[in-house]
C-alpha cells in the first residue's frame, strides 16, 4: 500500500515539471517578443536568456528529483 502511495506521489510531483515548462516558455517567449522589437540588442542578451531559463528550470528539476526519490528511494 505504501509503495503505491509513493507512486501516486511521484505522479503528483510530475506536475511540477509542467509548471517549470510554463516558466521556461514564459522566459523564452518574452525574450522572443523583445528580440523581434529590437533585433540588434538580442545577441547581447542570449546569456541572460539562458540564465533565466536555467533558474526557471531548476524548480522543475527539483520536482523531478522528488519524483525519483519517491519511485526509487521510498
Amino acid at each position, binding site marked *: 500500500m505504501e509503495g503505491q502511495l509513493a507512486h501516486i506521489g511521484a505522479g503528483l510531483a510530475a506536475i511540477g515539471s509542467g509548471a517549470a515548462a510554463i516558466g521556461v516558455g514564459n522566459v523564452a517567449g518574452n525574450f522572443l517578443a523583445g528580440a523581434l522589437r529590437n533585433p540588434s540588442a538580442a545577441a547581447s542578451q542570449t*546569456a541572460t536568456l*539562458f*540564465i533565466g*531559463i*536555467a533558474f526557471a*528550470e*531548476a524548480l522543475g*528539476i*527539483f520536482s*523531478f*528529483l522528488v519524483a525519483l526519490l519517491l*519511485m*526509487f528511494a521510498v
Partner: protein
Amino acid sequence: MASEAQGAEEGGLVFHPMDQFIIKPLFGGDHIGLFTITNATLWMALAVVAVVALMVIGTRRRAIVPSRGQSIGELAYGFVYKMVEDVAGKDAIKFFPYIMTLFLFIVMANFLGLIPMSFTTTSHFAVTVVLALLVFVTVTVVGFVKNGAGFLGLFWVSSAPLPLRPILAIIEVISYFVRPVSHSIRLAGNVMAGHAVIKVFAGFAAIAVVSPVSVVAITAMYGLEVLVAFIQAYVFTILTCVYLKDALHPSH
C-alpha cells in the same frame, strides 16, 4: 521499483529504461570498492582523452590556416573566454583555465554519452555533485579571500527597505546554499531524463504497430539530446561565471 520478471510476464518493456545507468566493474567481480575500475571510470577517462586530443593534439601544429580540429579548439577557447569576460568580468579571467576545463569535460562527457551503448557519466549525481561542490567551495573561498567580511554583503540587500532586509537575508542565505544542489541536479537530471526517454521509446519499438512512430520519435529525441548535451554544459559553465561574479563583486 517494479521487478523485471513481472514486467516481462505482463508483456511490458523488455528492459528497464534506467538499466543503462547501472555501474558495472569492467574486469569481472561484483564488488565495487573505492578503486574498482568501472564503466564510469572508463568513460570519464575517455572524456579526458577526448579533451586532450582536441586541445593538445588538435592545436599542436598552430597552422595559420587551421585544420578542422584546430578550428574547433580555437572556437571553444574563444567561446568560453568571451563568456567569462562578459558574464564574470575582466578580473575573473584568471579563473578562465578552471572554467574552460569544466566546460570541455562536461561537453565531452555529454557527447560521448550520446554514442549508442556508451555510458553517460554526467547522468550520475555523484559526478555532477562533485563538480558543483568544487565550484561552490571555490566561489566561497574566493569571495572571502577577495572581500573579507565584505562578502557577507551579498546576503544584506542594501537597496531594499530596512525592515525587509533581515527577511531577505534569510532568503538569500537559503538560495546561496541551494546553489550547488540545483547546479548539479540540473545537469544530471536533464541528461538522465533525456536518455531514459530515448530508452522508453526504444522499448515501444518492439511492438510492430507503433515501431515506425517509435523510430521517428527516437531520432527526434536524439537530435534534441545533442542540443541538450551542449546547452546543459553551457548553462553549467555560465552559472559558474555568475557565481564567480557574485564572489568578486558581492554588492547588490
